[in-house]
């Protein structure tokens, strides 16, 4: 990898790195200390070297009744790496400490923006005081936002309980808890706040200590929170302009729905065998809650049992699915070989995380591509697909099921921790737009002639799918090599060559049955193609947009079908002078593309557990065209 572009790691937390600037608004009751909170946040931000502008917004009344809309106090700050001239139009992040604050401010939050809510303050009485007829946490009020609902009141009380404060005094610390969380979110330091608190409460050291404890607790919460809380999932999605009905989905949600949708299109029942693992478990949870869809879920005793149960289900004629993350996928490897050998359909979802070994369970990475394409004993090919965004999981899951059932093969479906937990606005699909691909299980010939359970479609090379219970087609399958014709165990050298060739050709042939590779953004030839897969979609797209705005002839090509590749991919890439491949690994797609197409490309690698920044990719493009 001679042309690797070095990436600079920063200490900024994930998912905000790609922001050029952000607008944050703190809103609460006058008594909640929002101005103080905002001021402290501002100080920390300024000390971190960001340009900023603020807009404190006090209530008119000095002592407005607590909990009412008149008593809402807000503080907005816009900060960024470039010049910041205003306090920002719409907040990207809104922090609301009570219902009244939510009511007064939610209307200004950017679509898709994040709203952090203290659910502990959403009591019937506070809701009534704010004039809510229905609880906004339960109706559509938050539909177009990423709502982070936390019981900040309770967590604050817990954090300060050892200081013996009155309940009222203890609750007053919740602004510091919230500040701690926000400081964590933007990678700001706590030290200035701690110093300020110590001075402010010089005469009441127990109050100083309690406030510092709350601040630290909020910070620690952010640090240790699973991505599934949504806290780390904030990112600015490109504006969605296509008309339609939208909601926000996480990748796990879209994946689960896509799997159910795909099974319905295939006219099959799902059996998910899974073992809990971060960050894949939400798929197990989602599907386990979909019993009324006929979905069977099985929390197995281990990863191996999980995939094996799915294989057993596929043998029975259902669609077996297993879902895990890298370490679990490693354990499933032998069973994948069995599914390949016995030619049973199976979906294997890998929500990738940082590796190797246990690695970084809650951080994102896309370093399991080699494992997906090559990681089995023997010559054991299988199709590999990857989802590019949370919403994209839906269609990719359907495509995986189509391929698995048509070609009687396990399919590896790659997503990652970022996609799994991130939420994005998603145009809700209409199932009528998807073409069904109903599966036909084989039955014995009606004329009474001998059934052929090992018959094969010579076009797709797929074996027929015979389910036990079918009279006249009783047969035995297994992991031993079997005869091409009869399906009996065979150690014949020529037969093994033939079967190996067959397994290879079957998967390679799928290339003829997948959509041609499209250019995601830009022209089909030019100076630079930025080629990606998976969750690098967002930063690549925005970086290519910026470079194009600078007049660079650059295009974005994002690959869903990673094995086999679309047939036109090689010629498409040949139309570009240079190819840049940013990946959150040490160059896996880069290597695979080089292997397949003898391609000359530049790898751009980042393995920090954090997504790419737009600016990093933008700069790499500039460097390639000599503009840096």
């Amino acid at each position, binding site marked *: 990898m001679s042309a690797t572009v070095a990436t600079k790691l920063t200490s900024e937390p994930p998912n905000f790195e790609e922001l050029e600037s952000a607008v944050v608004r703190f809103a609460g009751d006058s008594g909640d200390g929002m101005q103080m909170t905002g001021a402290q946040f501002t100080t920390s931000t300024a000390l971190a070297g960001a340009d900023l502008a603020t807009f404190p917004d006090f209530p008119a009344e000095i002592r407005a009744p607590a909990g009412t809309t008149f008593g809402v106090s807000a503080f907005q700050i816009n900060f960024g790496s470039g010049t910041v001239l205003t306090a920002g139009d719409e907040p990207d992040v809104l922090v609301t400490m009570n219902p009244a604050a939510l009511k007064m401010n939610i209307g200004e939050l950017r679509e898709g923006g994040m709203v952090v809510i203290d659910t502990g303050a959403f009591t019937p009485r506070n809701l009534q005081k704010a004039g809510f007829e229905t609880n906004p946490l339960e109706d559509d009020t938050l*539909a*177009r936002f990423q709502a982070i609902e936390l019981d900040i009141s309770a967590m604050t009380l817990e954090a300060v309980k050892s200081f013996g404060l009155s309940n009222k005094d203890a609750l007053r610390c919740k602004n510091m808890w919230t500040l701690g969380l926000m400081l964590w979110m933007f990678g700001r330091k706590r030290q200035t706040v701690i110093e300020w608190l110590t001075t402010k409460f010089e005469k009441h050291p127990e109050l100083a200590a309690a406030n510092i404890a709350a601040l630290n607790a909020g910070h620690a919460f952010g640090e240790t929170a699973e991505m599934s809380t949504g806290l780390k999932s904030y990112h600015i999605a490109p504006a969605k*302009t296509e*008309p339609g*009905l*939208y*909601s*926000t989905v996480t990748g796990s949600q879209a994946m689960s*729905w896509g799997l159910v*949708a795909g099974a*319905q299109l295939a006219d099959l029942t799902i*059996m998910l*065998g899974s073992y809990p693992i971060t960050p894949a478990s939400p798929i197990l949870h989602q599907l386990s809650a*979909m*019993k*009324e*869809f*006929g*979905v*069977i879920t*099985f929390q*197995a*005793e*281990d990863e*191996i*049992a999980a995939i*094996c*149960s*799915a*294989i*057993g*289900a*596929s*043998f*029975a*004629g*259902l669609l077996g699915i297993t879902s895990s993350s890298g370490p679990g996928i490693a354990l499933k490897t*032998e*069973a994948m*070989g*069995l599914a390949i050998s*016995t030619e049973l359909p199976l979906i294997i979802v890998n929500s990738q995380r940082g590796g190797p070994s246990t690695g970084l369970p809650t951080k994102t990475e896309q370093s399991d591509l080699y494992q997906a394409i090559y990681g089995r004993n023997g010559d054991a090919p299988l199709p590999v697909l990857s989802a590019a965004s949370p919403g994209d999981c839906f269609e990719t899951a359907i495509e995986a099921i189509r391929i698995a059932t048509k070609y009687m093969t396990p399919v590896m479906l790659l997503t990652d921790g970022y996609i799994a937990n991130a939420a994005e606005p998603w*145009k*809700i699909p*209409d*199932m009528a737009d998807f073409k069904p691909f109903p599966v036909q299980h084989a039955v014995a010939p009606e004329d009474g002639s001998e059934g052929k359970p090992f018959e094969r479609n010579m076009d797709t090379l797929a074996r027929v799918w015979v*389910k*036990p*219970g*079918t*009279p*006249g*087609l*009783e*047969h*035995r*399958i*297994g*992991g031993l090599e079997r005869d091409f014709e009869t399906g*009996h165990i065979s150690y014949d050298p020529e037969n093994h060559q033939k079967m190996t060739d067959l397994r290879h050709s079957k998967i390679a042939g799928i290339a003829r049955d997948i959509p041609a590779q499209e250019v995601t953004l830009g022209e089909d030839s030019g100076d630079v193609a930025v080629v990606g897969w998976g969750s690098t979609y967002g930063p690549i797209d925005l970086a290519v947009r910026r470079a194009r705005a600078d007049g660079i002839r650059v295009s974005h090509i994002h690959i869903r079908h990673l094995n086999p590749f679309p047939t036109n991919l090689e010629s498409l890439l040949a139309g570009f002078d240079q190819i840049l491949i940013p990946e959150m690994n040490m160059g896996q797609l880069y290597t695979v593309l080089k292997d397949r197409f003898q391609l000359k490309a530049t790898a751009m690698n980042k393995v920090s557990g954090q997504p790419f920044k737009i600016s990093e990719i933008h700069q790499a493009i500039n460097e390639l065209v000599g503009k840096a």
Partner: protein
Amino acid sequence: MNEQSDIKKLTPKDFASDQEVRWCPGCGDYAILKCMQRTLPEIGTDPANIVFVSGIGCSSRFPYYMSTYGFHTIHGRAPAIATGLKLANPDLDVWVVTGDGDGLSIGGNHMLHVLRRNVDLNILLFNNEIYGLTKGQYSPTSKPGTVSPSTPYGSVEGSVSACAFALGSGGRFIARIIDTDQKHMPDIFKRAHANKGASFVEIFQNCPIYNDKVFADFTEKATAAETRLYCQHGERLIFGKESDKGIRLNIDTLGLEVVSIGENGVKEDDILIHDETNRMLAHMLVALEPPDFPVALGVIYADPAPSFDYSVHKQIEMVTAERGKGDLGALMRGGRTWTVN
């Protein structure tokens, strides 16, 4: 649809595949295979509804020799694959064929869980206390001191008792039989089949090649009456050529003891009556070992409970009845939504 509706009476030949059986001459597996082919017509399930699932090892070749559906899977994983199969189609009769290495070593974890979950499977564990297919290494059931290629100076590990393991795992049907005992074997197979839940059957299987006569203590015909205790529910635990010996509970040791009826004032009434629903008794029975005790055979424990596959489907039915059949479009539109025009 499980029971055979056809008028045609099936015979053992209808259950034999066209594949040449490839076990070593004299292997205990032959007798078990023959017995299975002989018993299935009596059970009466349509061959199309029967599946034999196995792992890896000599015994795991079993499915190839049956004309039913079969799945020769990977080492140790038969219970896991069979669980998925049974969950997917509870109407199938699923038999799991495994061995001491397959089922208690590499697949020990799956065996534990399939038993505690009570998946409706008929599990036959062929125990020959050795690894046959890999040429004779000691297995988890080999007695300490077993000399094998991997333990040339004798093994220095304790061994596991298959039935004690199965009971400890929460198994609700535990039976034990000897490969050559063709008299009792069909009945055991029928009982295992009839039990709706995980039925665990340990079969003492002789491997004449690598571990010949390892069970000779109780398999020798001549001494059979003195060394085997055949447990029959509701009947006294009596054995011996003259039916003069029995098993009695010793209150002082809280254990079982062998007594002779008519000696030291022991009356027949003192002999324990076998209650196959008594788990404590089952634990004590499976622990009996020669030379001090006879080996307990037959159905040692049977206390049925709803099977896992039944309960899983029952729950799906209940939730569906409560919530109505799922509508994906409605579900996806059911969250917080907004419209872009």
